[in-house]
């Protein structure tokens, strides 16, 4: 009998608590997109610095971001390398397919008997976007930098850079896909 009384007393409390929780979560969900729409969020993308930035190592993973009027690359725990967006002369997009796993994976594939590693290689590749920049230093010297980003991210970053004042030539608008045809130059 007592048990019944307790359970009936608890039920409305639980109901109220769950209602409050539900309201809080809905409020939190509704609030977060509104905040991001009002304040401009800095673009920040994980990527690999293939080459170009002087103080960053080649093939270093890090975060590529736009802070104010500069494009920054920061490897975890290392000082930031940055380039003024106004100094960017051209931006090129590209695509490339790479084998995943690096050297350990390559060695592992080589160790698989009966050519099994080759079969693994057929599926162990991933497509990436490349973002190539041309920019000038304070002396007017031309620099180039290449970043490897996840598929679809390079275009977003380029658009953001263009919106912030980076220059892009018309020829750079089409993403370049690598073909396997051998192309000899004539008349050279």
């Amino acid at each position, binding site marked *: 009998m007592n048990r019944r009384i307790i359970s009936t007393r608890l039920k409305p409390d639980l109901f109220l608590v769950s209602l409050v929780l539900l309201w809080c979560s809905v409020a939190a969900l509704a609030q977060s997109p509104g905040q991001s729409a009002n304040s401009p969020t800095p673009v920040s993308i994980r990527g690999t610095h293939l080459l170009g930035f002087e103080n960053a190592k080649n093939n270093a993973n890090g975060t590529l971001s736009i802070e104010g009027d500069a494009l920054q690359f920061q490897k975890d725990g290392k000082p930031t390398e940055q380039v003024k967006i106004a100094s960017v002369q051209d931006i090129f997009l590209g695509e490339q397919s790479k084998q995943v796993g690096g050297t350990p994976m390559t060695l592992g594939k080589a160790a698989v008997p009966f050519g099994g590693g080759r079969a693994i290689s057929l599926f162990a590749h991933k497509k990436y976007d490349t973002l190539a920049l041309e920019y000038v230093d304070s002396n007017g010297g031309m620099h180039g930098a290449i970043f490897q980003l996840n598929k679809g991210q390079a275009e977003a970053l380029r658009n953001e850079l263009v919106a912030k004042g980076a220059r892009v030539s018309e020829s750079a608008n089409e993403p370049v896909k690598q073909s396997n*045809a051998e192309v000899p130059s004539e008349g050279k």
Partner: protein
Amino acid sequence: MKGSNRVSLLVVAVAVVTTSVAHPRQLSAENAASSSGTSSTAGQWSVQVDKVDPGDVALAPSFQIAIYESLVDELGKTKRFKQVLRDGDRNAGDISDLLILKTSVQKYSAGSETRRAVTTVSGATKLTVRSQLCARDGHIILERTVNGNVRFMGSNLRATHNLARNVAKAIKQSSLPDPSHSASHAAIDSDQVVVVELR
């Protein structure tokens, strides 16, 4: 007693052979060092690296940028030049002994990293460029046709690194005229230009 004599004889023989083998090598190493020393001190030029000219070849812009950046890096490593300047650098105007490195792409085969990994024998990325070291007035001082390939392991962009290394190696191994001599005698005739293909 006999045994100890044999051992001592063996030791002496080994010592004689070792010294006879080691000495010529040491001498040749000294020669090599002295020759490389003269080549590095002889050239007091500075070099300006021009942007890569793709010519008629449909070379991806990222490859052009990678070749250019790798060339700047590799030429700096050779220590053959006083300064390695970039294309458009305003400081180049103040330097009297300046060479300009022009690179034009002749042949390009894109290749595929996956094909290389699967087949081993196909999918190589191949690049062939013509590199010219020119004086300020446009006279060609050195001309080389250089290849850069990736045949087995590595990404396609590695071909640009190999290419730049080969260009730098070719320039390091060649003898450049003395800057002061060259300044007084304008530049070398085009007949004197030697074209060497590195394969």
